[in-house]
């Protein structure tokens, strides 16, 4: 690839007591691509993603966003830099409305006296933007934007979480197991959403155990093994069983795919 990567990580190390979750891990994400991250349980995928999204602070190593070194101390800082994450547990507040959830932590206040002095939220504006975003992503089967998230189905909740990330992510969207808890039809919907987001030019990091889904949407596949990047492969040149063999250590990846 000739382009410069938008997000890179070099030599990330993260230890939890005696366990080394990240052992000199590297990571590269190029503009406009869908990069799948796969790996066995305990390979350190989650720690890698958490380090990039600001949920954990790595002990060593460097992360660069568009060439500039960044060090996020909280998910909020990563979000402010334009990196949005859809967590596996979705990070939604069940009792709050769809609109409130989408704007959690970055509410819009009313202009003028009401907003400045009475700190009043601009509900109509937030609801309008939430509705626009959901409609844009084809998710507007939800009747009422003011309804509590706990009254939605699993797929609808996932949709709200993806819409939130797509609405605010300006540089990178990270999705952790977005289809893990969904049925066949709802998974399809989420995969279409992922491709929709890609069409807007946002690069996506997709963490998944579902090989068919990974091979269907990913442009490149980052294989994580024993706390580090083992290889990056092109899904068109390898089969799913190759990928599984590499990631479980059954087969050594070819030299060409080995990470630099």
């Amino acid at each position, binding site marked *: 690839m000739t382009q410069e990567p938008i997000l890179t990580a070099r030599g990330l190390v993260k230890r939890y007591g005696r366990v080394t979750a990240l052992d000199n891990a590297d990571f590269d994400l190029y503009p406009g691509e869908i990069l799948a991250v796969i790996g066995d349980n305990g390979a350190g995928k989650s720690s890698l993603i958490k380090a990039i999204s600001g949920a954990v602070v790595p002990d060593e190593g460097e992360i660069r966003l568009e060439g500039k070194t960044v060090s996020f101390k909280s998910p909020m800082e990563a979000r402010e830099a334009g990196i949005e994450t859809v967590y596996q547990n979705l990070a939604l*507040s069940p*009792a709050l409305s769809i609109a*409130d959830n989408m704007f959690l*932590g970055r509410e819009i206040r009313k202009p003028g006296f009401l907003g400045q002095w009475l*700190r009043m939220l601009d509900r109509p504006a937030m609801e309008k933007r939430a509705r626009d975003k959901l409609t844009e992503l084809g998710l507007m089967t939800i009747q009422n934007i003011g309804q509590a998230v706990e009254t939605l189905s699993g797929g609808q909740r996932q949709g709200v979480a993806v819409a939130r990330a797509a609405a605010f992510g300006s540089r990178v969207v990270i999705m952790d197991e977005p289809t893990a808890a969904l049925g066949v039809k709802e998974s*399809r919907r989420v*995969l279409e959403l992922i491709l929709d987001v890609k069409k807007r030019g946002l690069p996506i990091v997709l963490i998944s155990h579902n090989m068919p889904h990974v091979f*269907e949407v990913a442009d490149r596949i980052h294989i994580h093994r024993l706390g580090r990047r083992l290889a990056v492969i092109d899904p068109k040149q390898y089969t799913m069983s190759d990928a599984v063999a590499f990631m479980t250590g059954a087969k050594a990846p070819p030299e060409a795919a080995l990470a630099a």
Partner: protein
Amino acid sequence: MAQAQEFEKVLSGSDTNVAAFDEHKSAVRRIQHFLHSTPAAVPLIVLVLSIIIFGITIGGRFFSSYTLTLILQQIAIVGILGAAQTLVILTAGIDLSIGVIMVISAVIMGNCAVSYGLPSVIAVALGLAAGAACGLLNGVLVAYMKLPPFIVTLGTWNIVMATNFIYSANETIRDTDVDTQAPLLHLFALSFKVGTAVLTAGVIAMVALVLLLWYVLNHTAWGRHVYAVGDDQEAAKLSGIQTKKVLMTVYTLAGLIAAFAAWVSIGRNGSISPSAAVTDYNLQAITATVIGGISLFGGRGSILGTLFGAMIVGVVSMGLNMLGADPQWKVLLTGVLIIGAVAVDQWIRKVSA
């Protein structure tokens, strides 16, 4: 668009009706939904029912505006403490120390004004500051040391209570001394007559405080964050809410409101006693909150419910008093109401689309 997987090809022929539930909602389900979206409705209904029941059994005497406003006067302190407790319980915590925070704040206000002869304004400010400081201690221990709120506030309850007795030497400050030297402390005893209705400044303060907090909880970002933190703290943190700050401000504010309740209580009681019935106030505030439909698991309920909850307790005790019943009936009925309220809460929580 992505090529569908082989097994997904059949999806094109699948039923396009999304979530085709049998949409005839039974009346019960509809009530459940209504209660789910309007959490203050249950206590309001119970309040109206209990007023009607006592009204019928006692007769016109109970419906007089004098009686009804007397009930409000009696619940003013519990209502304000309940408002503080509501904030804490909304974050899935509990504050057992607000009762003693109230007492020590009252003692500090009294001592500063009467014994040290400071201007009353400064005495009140110091009392409020002391309450906020106690709350801040709770907040730091809960938010940063990550200790369970029950344990933290059980500890500070004892610490503050002992400090209060050591500091005050258990001396009561007399009504007349307060009146002559610091009339400002009796501000909330001011009363107005509207016909036979008697309103005190304390009652007005309680209602105003609850309305203010209702606005803050529902129409500001901070208020929404309080609900989000109580609902699912981990999710709130991942959505970018500074959960520690929210918890700390909630406990500090609860302490400040408890100190405000102290000011109101001086107005109601006249004198200032370091050995005021702390446990009673504590439990009554928690009772009002729970009967008001604030979920002990956090994140659910409306602060208006707490106000109604406090009124329910007030109406029940006044009604039973007027009927000449044994006071233990009041205690028994309160217990029934608490269990009933939690049962209703559990039922409402089961609602889903």
